[in-house]
């Protein structure tokens, strides 16, 4: 909009443009107000802007001049409101430039109520794609804006949000033409791919695996119940290879989940820009990752690996090599499914509902319990055990040892195709969903102690076996619940309503020890 406050020479002109700032992974509406009044020629940007936003002045000036518009030689102030919100990144360029054009009468300000504008400008005046377009489109719909102008490369991503008009533009002149009504909005980009589409043909499949019957069984249980899994085995035994195949066993993302994952990945600038993420994320951070890199943080706070793995799999290879603070930081995400980062007066929430797969050597040299001799000293072993014990292990339901397959197994038949296992997983998840329809949990892994008692019904023999294990001291109270959760999933896979003895026994054989005393010499 454009307001002339008077006809005489001291008149000031004002334009207001709607755009969005990304706060964590959430969009917040920002109004760019441009004020032009007589005085010494200056151009200021105010409103808690970071370095990238202040640099917008230079980009906007050059873009306007190079697009053959006039840059008013007057006193120009651009205000980003609300003033308390910290504005980050280059996405405000286009909005500031358009506000300046509208305020100086070089383009029509009448359509500015209908369109939100989001994009970075190059010095030549072209509109560059920037991160977080999907989040901005969701914010625009929520704010009740009719349409969104973005760089045409990102129009497809913005169009994933229904109920909002999207215009993909090339440059500043394109935006002006749109606002002047000279040019119709470009035809909407093709409909987004459905998330139910088949997984990518080059995705890792179980059919590539030979041998490893036990770890494959554990992967199936982990996928069916959403359980966290620890793979233990010597180097080169195939732990990473197995972990990479877990996403292929998980149910497809629902549309809502796919949008959430796409929004996070778009804000973080990972993956292919422009389309809907259809496969479950698999994130494998290196063990030197910092706590902030793992769970999110920094200034401004950005999502970490745990959030990038939301609705997917977080794989921690060489678990014992991760720093203690990093592993400690994972507790809240594992417990609550989200991480809250508090900075000054603001608290940001990042969702972190992932399945954790961790891999570790049985000892620092990796060969304890294998055909090679272990060469670790007592202190190294003790350090290794300390790293692995503790709160993180409490959140891992399944422990499975991975041994190098024998030559006979390598020559043998391959494992089942992922799709066949996935059908069993889907059926098991359906049974869980039906049972947990009123509960806050969606999978067996999310059952808390109270829900375990309510939802896991045991047969008599199963109850006795569990009591026996508990009395023998091989189980802690927490471990007891973990075994019950896993047994419930095994029964779901076997399509049983009641948990039977064999389910409990299998769960016991796959339990994580109370401490990692299995690697301890007396």
């Amino acid at each position, binding site marked *: 909009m454009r307001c002339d406050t008077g006809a005489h020479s001291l008149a000031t002109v004002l334009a207001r443009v709607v755009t969005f700032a990304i706060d964590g992974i959430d969009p917040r509406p920002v109004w760019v107000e441009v004020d032009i009044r007589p005085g010494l020629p200056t151009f200021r940007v105010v409103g808690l802007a970071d370095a990238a936003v202040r640099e917008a002045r230079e980009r906007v000036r050059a873009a306007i001049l190079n697009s053959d518009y006039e840059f008013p030689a007057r006193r120009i102030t651009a205000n980003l409101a609300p003033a308390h919100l910290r504005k980050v990144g280059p996405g405000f360029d286009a909005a500031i430039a358009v506000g300046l054009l509208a305020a100086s009468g070089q383009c029509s300000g009448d359509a500015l109520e209908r369109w939100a504008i989001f994009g970075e400008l190059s010095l030549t005046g072209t509109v560059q794609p920037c991160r977080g377009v999907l989040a901005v489109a969701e914010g625009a719909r929520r704010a009740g804006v009719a349409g969104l102008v973005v760089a045409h490369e990102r129009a497809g991503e913005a169009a994933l949000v229904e109920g909002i008009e999207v215009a993909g533009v090339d440059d500043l002149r394109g935006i002006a033409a749109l606002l002047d009504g000279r040019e119709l909005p470009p035809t909407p980009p093709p409909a987004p791919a459905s998330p139910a589409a088949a997984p990518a043909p080059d995705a890792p499949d179980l059919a590539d695996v030979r*041998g*490893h*019957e*036990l770890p494959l*069984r554990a992967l199936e249980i982990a996928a069916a119940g959403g359980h966290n899994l620890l793979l*233990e*085995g*010597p180097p080169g035994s195939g732990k990473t290879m197995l972990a990479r195949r877990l996403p292929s066993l998980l149910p497809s993302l629902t549309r809502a989940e796919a949008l959430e994952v796409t929004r996070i990945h778009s804000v973080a600038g990972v993956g292919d820009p422009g389309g809907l993420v259809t496969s479950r994320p698999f994130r494998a951070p290196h063990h030197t990752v910092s706590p902030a890199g793992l769970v999110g943080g920094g200034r401004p706070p950005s999502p970490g690996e745990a959030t990038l793995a939301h609705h997917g799999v977080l794989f921690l290879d060489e678990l014992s090599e991760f720093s203690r603070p990093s592993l400690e930081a994972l507790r809240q995400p594992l417990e609550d499914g989200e991480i809250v980062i508090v900075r000054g007066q603001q608290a940001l929430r990042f969702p972190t509902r992932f399945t954790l797969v961790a891999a570790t050597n*049985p*000892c620092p040299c990796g060969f*304890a*319990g*294998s055909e090679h*001799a*272990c060469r*670790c000293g*007592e202190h190294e072993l*003790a350090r290794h055990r300390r790293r692995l014990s503790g709160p993180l292990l409490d959140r891992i339901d399944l422990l*499975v*040892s*991975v*041994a190098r*397959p*024998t030559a*006979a*197994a390598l020559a043998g038949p391959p494992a089942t195709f992922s799709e066949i296992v996935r059908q069993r997983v889907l059926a098991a998840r359906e049974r869980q969903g039906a049972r947990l329809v009123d509960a806050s949990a969606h999978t067996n892994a999310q059952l808390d102690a109270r829900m375990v008692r309510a939802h896991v019904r045991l047969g008599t023999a199963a109850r006795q*076996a569990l009591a*026996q*294990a508990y009395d*023998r001291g*091989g189980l802690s109270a927490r471990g007891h619940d973990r075994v019950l959760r896993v047994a419930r999933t095994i029964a779901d896979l076997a399509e049983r309503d009641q948990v039977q*003895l*064999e389910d*409990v*026994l*299998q769960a*016991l*054989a*796959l339990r994580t020890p109370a401490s990692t005393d*299995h*690697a301890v*010499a*007396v």
Partner: protein
Amino acid sequence: MRPFADGALEPPCRSCLRRAWLVARLGGHIEVVWSTRRGNAGLLALDDQALIASLAGDRRDAVVAEYECFDDGAARSRCAASGVTALCRCDSRYPSQLEDLPDPPAVLHVRGDLARFERGLAADRVAIVGARRATEYGLQQARGLGRGLAAAGLTVVSGMALGVDAAAHVGALDAHGLTVAVLACGPEQAYPPSKRRLHMRIVEHGAVVSELPPGAPVRRWCFPARNRIIAALAQATVVVEAGERSGSLITAGQAADLGREVAAVPGLVTAPLAAGTNALIADGAQLVCGAHDVLELLFGAAALTLLPAGPDERVAGLEQDLRALLERVGGGHDTVAALASDGTSVEAVLAGLAQLELCGLVRRGPGGRYTATA
């Protein structure tokens, strides 16, 4: 427990206490000789003056001065303060077995009930020694031997080291038997420190002994010196797991020199920790598969009739398929993959192993390998 008030009772006599002090005092010097010559053969057999002369070097005058004004009252009160009884060679209760050594310790410092220690020495004694970094198999065997021998009324002697030694003590304690730990430092300290709880249990239910007085630190030469006491105290020494150049082989050699029986538990020919034990067997050591073999070695075949015969009750009560599974575990099929290779489903193997584990018949070890505990 403080049987001796300060200086109220004799012995321990002054000269023996002084000798024990001197060995500890010269510990650093012995260490130097030991690390350059890789051995301290004969050093401990020297008399006090010769020991000072050959070791003290520049410090000789200072050591002689300290030696001359040695305060035996202070040494006694140090022992009393740390609950240690000093048995010197002039004491009638000094273990006569140690007299067989060419260099018997002047004083044996005992932590724990003295009457219990004497009872332990009066019974038949077997030493169980082996590798610190033992495998699950070695630990099982050591524990099993300790348990079996203690249950048969024998005293288990070992060095409380990590691995096999500790497992042997634990087995004996589990069977409520007597066990004696010989340490390479003062008997009031737990070495290695991670065995603090085991140290406390042995002090309570057995005895911890050392030739070194309270406060003496651990040095490398103390281990072979400690081994000679283990070898001398026991009638037979059983080596459970030992590499090619293991300290346990030193103990076995010392036992053989003293005319004691030497026995060894065999292992896989490919296992590095079986190289030492298999070599001992090849050299004529008695092959030991269980406590009954040790009893037969000590008392002849007649002893075996005293032992309960027949299979374990727990095993007898198992269903057919579980018993078959247990046999396969015992036969070296120790991973789920190996157990499932005969066509049994992984699910069935897992369930069976869990059931056997519940009955206490198998244990899950590192690398997901199962071992039979029976």
